[in-house]
């Protein structure tokens, strides 16, 4: 009689992990392409206001960021909204110099395309934003983006 069963117990062959690196590399490539390096570490709390009509900012190299919000470390920096430029808190008066410096880093034909993106918390008062805007006007950085998160109509009204 022919025995179909082999004498020795069958062992399941181990799953080959040879393709694992390829998958990881693929993931890696995805992240390398689709993300950008973090420019600054946030020192202020920012919950972006919601909006429905937002547009994407086209060229990242032409955008300068200005952060306004309540410091994360309130013990050290107080609980009033403050302006963060690069990695430090700055008084509003320094904004003009900062913007002008950033503009000097751009090439001649890009200078007038520079956009300043204001990232501010939705619960802070407009006073400091108004000051920032005035300072930007003085620096003749007139293209401004009010950073916002995409939200529903309900969320927009919830800003109030």
């Amino acid at each position, binding site marked *: 009689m022919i025995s179909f069963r082999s004498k020795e117990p069958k062992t399941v062959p181990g799953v080959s*992990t*040879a393709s*694992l*690196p390829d998958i*990881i*590399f693929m*993931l*890696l490539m995805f*992240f*390398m392409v*689709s*993300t*950008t*390096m*973090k420019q600054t570490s946030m020192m202020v709390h920012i919950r972006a*206001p*919601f*909006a*429905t*009509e*937002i*547009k*994407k*900012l086209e060229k*990242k190299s032409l*955008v300068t*960021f200005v952060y306004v919000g309540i410091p994360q470390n309130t013990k050290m920096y107080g609980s009033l909204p403050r302006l963060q430029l690069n990695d430090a808190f700055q008084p509003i008066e320094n904004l003009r110099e900062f913007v002008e410096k950033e503009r000097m880093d751009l090439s001649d034909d890009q200078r007038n395309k520079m*956009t300043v*993106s204001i*990232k*501010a*918390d*939705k*619960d*802070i*008062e*407009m*006073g400091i*934003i*108004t000051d920032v*805007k*005035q300072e*930007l*006007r*003085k620096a*003749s*950085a*007139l*293209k*401004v*983006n*009010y*950073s*916002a*998160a*995409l939200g529903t109509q309900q969320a*927009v*009204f919830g*800003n*109030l």
Partner: protein
Amino acid sequence: MRTKKKLPEINAAPQADVAFQILIFFLIATTMDTDKGLLRKLPPIAEKQEQKKEDVKERNVFLVLVNRNNQLLVENQIGNINELRAKAKEFIENPYNAEDLPEKIKIEVPYFGEVAVTKYHVISLQNDRGTSYGAYMAVQNELTAAYNELRNQLAESKFNMKYDDFKDEDDPRRKAIDEIYPLRISEAEPRNVGGAK
């Protein structure tokens, strides 16, 4: 002759670990968020001497005030944010050529020919220093939405496309629509109501 010694295969298992490490580095050190928001153009700062008052007719101005309690005053009436978009649209378009809405001026626009547009309308937005940024953004959003809806309507009826589909800013069709519905939101010079800073 000696038979060639077979080279041992390189173990590829740690390759995954190395790749993992690089992956984790990128996960931590990079951000995904592309910045999005409402684009605006600030007016250039005026010299104190030549600060002339532009002669703007009353009917051409749509006044939106936001006070420190985030309440709206639209055209001197207590307004609701829900109605702001519709009101702004009516003001910008002035469909029935009403007397109290902005005057319509006939201009020549490519693709459209002679169109009567509210060329000199101004939406004036004023806020208090105590207004919350969220409220300000909600108002800005509604006003932008009013313009976008009108522009989209026009783009769809004329070109069967959405306004945003004209990617190039210099697209003549986009410019034509911009001419019919020019974005004219003016933000008042900040005033120190409660005395000097």
